[in-house]
């Protein structure tokens, strides 16, 4: 089962969940009606009154749906909103605290290895236990949060294990499901809250003697019914969550190839008095988001959102005897990844031409050529090599660029410099076309960085952009508007259509949009390819024309893509340049984004076949494919030379 299947599965699970929820609402309505009928109709010996039923069902449904909707809307502001709700504070990209720096580095390495920009990182400063969570609807608005205990008490390897566990939730589409669960349960919670309020209403000045006491009675009924519904909801939630946790543990080990790290973190939870418990009053509703059980051990395993600690550890370390060693605070952290088995010394720069150095011992290096049919093999499933590669890549980037990615101004200048044309003369014209008065600080930063950026090889350009995204989230809305305007102007002043540069800037804007007011809408609107054929033609035509020098070559490339798509229709024809320019591609990608994962898989495979001139992707073509894959919500890890 690959990435796309898992995405589809996650969606199906959501649908099943909505079905159960619908059932729960119907049962609740029936129960509420039964109570009303007993109270109001009982003496008349007749239990069916359509009017009463309409009123009751409408009222109950309204309350439950509204309660759910409000919560879902609140959570749709993204992972950051959830983190704030839980008492989290953002960890700043330019932090100087060694522990925070280490955390950011670990997250950034994982993000680069998975092919997504680093999610927002939050710290829960009030929480002394060891725990962590991931929240968000998509990779674009994902947030990872760790507790203070997690930050301080774990070694780098253990922290890496925990973060890898959270990344697996992000990449598997679990987060969306988890947030929906919170929303759904909130609807039933509102019912009990209203019931509790009604319970307090004492008999007022009602005319009839009997009716005065009816409200508390209804309240009691609502509390009981809502309570039962909530209980059932929590059972479902716990069952879903427990299963996901095992999977995430397994994925984390696959990612870091270091079971000891994750097992060590779990053992420390067991050995710590505070364990993984959370102090926040919101722990209950978000309990299934967390790395480990955030509540007191439930008396009934059925209600536990996490498998027992000992079992999770045994799955990783079969030698475990069930005794937890006491936790001692470790030495202050090394911010930088420790060199892996002396790898750094033997390692050529990641962008050294393949073959120039002997790549011995499974040393990760970007693949010079990737066979197009294998392009999607690693989608959403980063491996240990990707992580090692990400670490070396980060270390070998010039210091100046690394520093620039950490503050908003530097990051903005970096991205602007990255979309500048490689041709010096065009670059000059591009810079002159910008409004100096308006763009002053951005232009200074861009100018300072344009020389080191120009020396960055193709394989490191996309990762640099991804590294810049967290700092760019700190721009103010006004600065963000200006920044995107400048990006747009630079793209338009570039005479050659450079699809790669276009894809870079689209990636930046896509990942920043949720932070500047735009809600990520990711509703699947297309389950069939037919309505999207025109958009496919635009995308494939643009890709075919980028790599081709003449018409026949472009046609051949286009035909390869269409053949892979497996559809032949009159709409699928090679478009002239004027009909597949960047504006068209932009619009096409917007629509294609709303297709189902299965369509994305076919389309991306077709893209891979189109851009690869001879059945293999060069580094630049591979990076272009990665950037397009990002637009289709499919994180592709870097392509590496097989060991």
């Amino acid at each position, binding site marked *: 089962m690959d990435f796309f299947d898992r995405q589809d599965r996650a969606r199906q699970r959501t649908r099943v969940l909505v079905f159960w929820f619908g059932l729960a609402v119907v049962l609740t309505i029936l129960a509420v009606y039964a109570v*009303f009928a007993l109270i*109001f*109709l009982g003496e008349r010996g007749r239990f069916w*009154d359509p*009017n*009463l039923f309409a*009123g*009751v069902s*409408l*009222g109950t449904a*309204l*309350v439950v749906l*509204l309660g759910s909707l*409000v919560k879902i809307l*609140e959570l749709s502001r993204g992972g950051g*909103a959830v983190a*704030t709700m839980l008492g989290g*504070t*953002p960890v*700043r990209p*330019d*932090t*100087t605290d060694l522990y925070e720096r280490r955390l950011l580095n670990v997250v950034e390495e994982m993000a680069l290895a998975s092919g997504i920009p680093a999610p927002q990182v939050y710290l829960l400063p009030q929480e002394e236990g060891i725990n962590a969570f991931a929240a968000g609807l998509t990779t674009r608005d994902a947030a990872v949060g760790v507790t203070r205990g997690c930050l301080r008490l774990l070694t780098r390897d253990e922290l890496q294990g925990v973060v890898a566990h959270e990344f697996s939730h992000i990449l598997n589409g679990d987060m969306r499901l988890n947030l929906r669960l919170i929303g759904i349960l909130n609807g039933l919670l509102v019912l009990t809250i209203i019931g509790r309020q009604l319970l307090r209403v004492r008999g007022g000045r009602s005319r009839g003697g009997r*009716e005065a006491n009816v409200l508390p009675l209804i309240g009691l009924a609502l509390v009981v019914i809502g309570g039962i519904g909530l209980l059932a909801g929590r059972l479902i939630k716990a069952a879903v969550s427990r299963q996901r946790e095992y999977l995430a543990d397994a994925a984390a080990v696959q990612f870091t190839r270091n079971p000891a790290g994750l097992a060590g973190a779990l053992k420390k939870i067991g050995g710590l008095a505070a364990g993984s418990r959370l102090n926040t009053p919101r722990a209950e509703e978000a309990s299934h988001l967390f790395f480990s059980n955030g509540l007191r051990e439930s008396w009934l395993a059925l209600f536990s959102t996490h498998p027992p600690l000992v079992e999770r550890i045994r799955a990783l370390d079969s030698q475990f005897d069930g005794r937890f060693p006491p936790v001692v605070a470790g030495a202050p952290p090394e911010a930088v990844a420790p060199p892996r088995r002396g790898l750094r010394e033997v390692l050529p720069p990641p962008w050294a031409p393949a073959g120039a150095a002997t790549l011995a011992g499974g040393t990760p290096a970007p693949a010079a050529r990737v066979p197009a049919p294998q392009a999607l093999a690693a989608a959403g499933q980063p491996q240990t090599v990707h992580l090692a590669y990400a670490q070396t890549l980060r270390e070998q980037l010039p210091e100046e660029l690394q520093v620039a990615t950490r*503050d*908003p*101004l*530097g990051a903005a200048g970096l991205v602007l410099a990255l979309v500048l044309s490689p041709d010096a003369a065009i670059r000059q014209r591009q810079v002159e076309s910008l409004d100096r008065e308006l763009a002053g*600080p951005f232009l*200074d*930063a861009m100018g*300072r960085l344009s020389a080191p950026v120009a020396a960055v090889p193709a394989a490191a350009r996309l990762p640099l952009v991804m590294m810049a995204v967290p700092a760019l989230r*700190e*721009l*103010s*809305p*006004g*600065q963000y508007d200006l920044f995107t305007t400048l990006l747009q102007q630079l793209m338009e002043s570039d005479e050659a259509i450079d699809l790669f540069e276009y894809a870079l800037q689209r990636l930046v804007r896509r990942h920043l949009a949720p932070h500047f007011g735009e809600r990520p809408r990711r509703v699947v609107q297309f389950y069939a390819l037919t309505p999207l054929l025109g958009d496919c033609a635009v995308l494939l035509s643009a890709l075919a024309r980028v790599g081709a020098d003449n018409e026949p070559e472009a046609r051949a490339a286009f035909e390869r893509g269409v053949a892979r798509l497996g559809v032949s229709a009159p709409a699928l024809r090679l478009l002239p340049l004027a009909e597949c320019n960047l504006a068209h591609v932009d619009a096409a990608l917007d629509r294609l984004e709303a297709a189902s994962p299965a369509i994305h898989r076919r389309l991306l495979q077709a893209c891979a076949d189109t851009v690869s001139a001879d059945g293999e992707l060069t580094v630049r073509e591979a990076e272009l494919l990665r950037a397009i894959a990002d637009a289709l919500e499919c994180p592709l890890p870097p392509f590496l030379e097989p060991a």
Partner: protein
Amino acid sequence: MLTTLGILLLVLAVPVVLLLLWAIGAYNRLVTLRNRFKNAYAQIDVQLKRRYDLIPNLVETAKGYLAHERQTLEAVIQARNAAYAANQRAAANPGDAESMKGLTTAEAGLAGALGRLFAVAEAYPDLKANQNMLALQEELTSTENKIAFARQAFNDAVMTYNTARETFPTNLVAGAFNFAPAELFVVEQPEQREAPKVSFK
């Protein structure tokens, strides 16, 4: 009779629930906006601290050359310490009117003292050519740019918050839950709006 009660309940409950939901939304929005400008201050804080760390190095480097300008050097250090303290107060409570004004004044004082130091340094060609000094001045300029940028972001965030706080109907919620107005971080005199001149040309 019974259905009238049901309908009455519904008619009463729906607006109340809607109103409640709106109030929750408005409250959450105000909290978000407040967090946003507080977080934006953290951005300034990092850069200001960076500059406060650079200044003692600058003075240390200049000391060897400016033996006769002790007063100027001491004034810089004093202004730096005052600004450092003012920043700590502001960072503890960003947007608070008093501490923001204190910071504005202290920063103006520091900019003035630095300006005088650089004016004095004009007369010492050896100092101007010192590699360390050159590196420091480059660093200082770049930090100044980042501060200006971060200040803009902070002020934007404060403006958004203040607008939300003051406009109807959000102001009802703001009043009920004590959302205090936030103060901008301005640079006082127009001539000091520029980064202190650190060019020795």
